């Protein structure tokens, strides 16, 4: 019975992904377009700096310390411009992702209707300010959690002159790291349900949904966390497939580089699917449990 409680929203989540494949493709294309904004200047930079040197054949062999060091040292100023640009693009994409989140949840909320372009952008606009505040608060929570565990870790002592041996540091890491990861994961999960509350209940303020999300998650912890772990496992499966495939050959020729590109893009595509799966399945679980509790 409990298994079914997780599997049903999981399957439903996949159905939502498939049903809204236009949104899936749109999100992938947006990702590609933003990545190209820095990849194209990077291509120009590399073509200009090392496009005419025999040394660039070393790039085909994978990581080459001498090549990379010479490149960074001799042409680093050009590279740093691109890296700064990339940081800006990542930040911009982050803001847009907050914007799109409202649209994604608006689409996933509605069981009956298919993806509609209008509804997506409308949802994006409606929930943007609430979601941006929610992101700010939960980022703050995450920093506090990280700081708390860092404090606990440092309290154990890390100075080489004070500790008896590094084994005590390793033990601290082995104990604290899993607890930290678990705590951080729970907060990420609560954040997901807070987003769902905001969009599903169309609340005016965000503190109520945050409170409700905490209450909802801890009331249905096994189901919520089980589903979250299943979604994480799905991501791990996709990542493992990508890892195995991309390491199964040496990309040192045009066909193999193209193949690696396709494998990489398939992984990104699947990663976006898992993001939608996570939100879709959580939405389904939320709706199911809410109906159950109201009846």
């Amino acid at each position: 019975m409990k298994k079914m409680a997780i599997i049903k929203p999981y399957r439903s989540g996949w159905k939502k992904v498939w049903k809204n494949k236009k949104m899936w493709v749109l999100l992938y294309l947006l990702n590609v377009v933003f990545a190209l904004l820095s990849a194209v200047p990077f291509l120009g930079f590399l073509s200009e700096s090392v496009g005419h040197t025999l040394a660039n054949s070393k790039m085909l062999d994978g990581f080459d310390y001498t090549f990379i060091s010479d490149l960074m040292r001799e042409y680093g100023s050009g590279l740093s411009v691109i890296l700064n640009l990339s940081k800006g693009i990542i930040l911009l994409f982050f803001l847009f992702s907050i914007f799109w989140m409202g649209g994604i949840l608006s689409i996933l909320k509605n069981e009956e209707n298919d993806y509609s372009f209008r509804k997506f952008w409308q949802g994006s606009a409606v929930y943007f300010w609430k979601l941006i505040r929610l992101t700010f608060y939960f980022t703050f929570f995450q920093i506090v959690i990280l700081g708390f565990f860092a404090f606990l870790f440092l309290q154990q002592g890390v100075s080489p002159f004070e500790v008896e041996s590094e084994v005590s540091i390793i033990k601290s890491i082995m104990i604290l790291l899993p607890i930290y990861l678990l705590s951080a994961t729970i907060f990420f999960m609560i954040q997901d349900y807070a987003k769902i509350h905001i969009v599903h209940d169309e609340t005016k303020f965000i503190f109520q949904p945050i409170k409700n999300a905490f209450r909802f998650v801890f009331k249905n912890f096994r189901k919520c966390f089980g589903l979250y772990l299943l979604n994480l496992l799905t991501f791990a499966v996709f990542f493992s497939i990508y890892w195995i495939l991309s390491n199964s050959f040496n990309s040192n020729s045009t066909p193999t580089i193209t193949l690696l590109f396709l494998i990489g893009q398939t992984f990104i595509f699947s990663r976006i699917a898992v993001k939608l799966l996570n939100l879709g399945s959580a939405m389904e679980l939320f709706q199911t449990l809410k109906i159950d509790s109201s009846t």
Partner: protein
Amino acid sequence: MKYKLFFLFLLFSCLGFQSSKKAPLSARIANYDIQVKLDVEQKKLIAHTKLTWKNTSADTVSDLQFHLYYNAFKNSETTFFSERGLPSLFKTSLQEDCNWSWVEIQNMTDNYGNDLAAKMHYIQPDDDNKSDQTVLRVPLPRSVLPNETIEVEFDWIGKIPKTMIRTGYNKDFYFMAQWYPKVGVYEPAGMRYAEKGGWNCHQYHSSGEYYGEFGNYNIAMTVPENYIVGSSGTQPNPPKNNGDQTSTWTFEVDDVIDFAWGASPHFVENKMDWKGIEIRLLTYPEHVHFKERYFSILPQALEFFEENFEKYPYPSLTIIAPPFHGLYTGGMEYPTLITTLNSCLLPTGIRSTEILTVHEFVHQYFQQIVATNEMEEAWMDEGITNFYEGVIMDKIYGEKSSTIDFMGIKTGNAESDRVSYFNMKNPAIAPNSLNSWEFPAGSYHTIQYSKSAVWLNTLKRIVGEETFKEAMKTYYSRWKFKHPSAKDFVNVINEVVAKNHPVEFGDGMDWFFQQVLYGTEICDYAVSSISNDHKVTSSGIFDNLDECEQSEMAKNENDEPIFKSSVVVERLGDMTMPMEILIWFEYGHKVVEQWDGTATMKEFSYEGTRKIVCAEIDPQHKIFLDKNFLNNSYTSKPNLSGVRKYVNEFMFWMQNAMEGLGVLI
């Protein structure tokens, strides 16, 4: 027949006698008998030293000079701390807990009964810093005549530093280096750079380490009975329990320039034998599993040196692997004893344990046996050692993975030296030839270790591996158990290179050393352009004023177009190196040009039916000193396969970074 038997008996007797007492390897000038007690309560060494010093020069020596290294940590105004500043890690220990350390000689007499203590005084030969008490001058009432020996006896106390660089204690781990009053090196006129006889006894500086005289050591250490001692040399007898909860460990070693030891109740001992040499490893319990790594790499280093120089000449080699709280003593070299670093925090693919083991072992040859002056010419031990560390590590683990081979990140040892050198803010900041303490801030290590290794690597590639090997072996054979200077090194290299390459390098390699050793020039050559233009016939008005000749494409007898092609190479740095330039034409045709590399620009022009496809400077990659390998070649058409791969990966990671940050939403 009887006579023959008698002579045979006599011969074997002599051989037997000789083998039981090994012939001296060195001049054995400074010989020490020390009885020292380790007081773990007061953190002090309480000792008695008998120094036997032999005057092998033709001079009459009227004083002795001693290094008192522990006085470098006596106050914040010593030369050591003035140059370095108080390291932040030690500030609390020094300033708040008052863990300053010192060494004090309480009395001193010579073998004629003269009191030497009354007139002894500190001197500051390098910087006149009166707060520095790291060199003690002892005037002798009775001078030491040529070939005469003086015996000096003295009691002394040393306060052991806590968590100090290279030496000291932390918790119950003790590592005793630079721990005893150590006599300097007397250099008569003509030795190294000495124009007249005198002591070479520098103050203890922030950069640079030691310069020591050869001698025999007989050291008895009294330590708490549960302590295990690791030391230079070998034990003639097992430790003696004194019945007062202490035991005395005795170690002997001949023909060395220094002596170090360490003690802890937690040491775990492991031993192995390599061709009659006892290798003794002392680790802490949590590091016992590193044993295989030490016992795997060290024999390979021993083999390398036996093959390229000579067999390790001492009967023992001790490795002390300090605990985590004793990290500050790791990575040091002393005669027949090295300290390394290991940490359970580091994965196997990060080979710091192997690197340090090899590095410190190489020092057994280049600093301990070929006993150069590290205060004045540090490159002669650190540079040469770093070079051979690279050779051995790259040979064993591969040129591109000998330093790190972890999670797809691979770096080689020799290439790391090159990267480290050129990644300096200013690689031309100082020549190798400066005294250790004269290096501008932060440049000592990279210039002396990395730059030297890079130019030695270049030298090897230029003169050829066999010639280089012969030259280094000659240098070693000629200067082992002596004190060579840079000019002695250069002389040997010049001699062997000129003998093996009379045409190419008949005048020796001074041109090379002037730039890399005594100069700060940077080497950077580049292929700056390739052009392939159609040759056209002449145009204009020539003999007939009424006829205007039009230009047209020039062709050969087979009606193939003729090209005027050229390659331009440039010298971007100040350093000049002769080199080859390989020029590839269409259809696989190649031309190798020679260039002396002195002009700032050189153009190579050709006329023919084949276009130039690419050009490469130094195609055999001899000039490891070149700052930028990327501009050493140029292709007429862009070659973008590798670029596409990097762009592909960059884009993939960019996409992941964007999605990854999305978890915060």
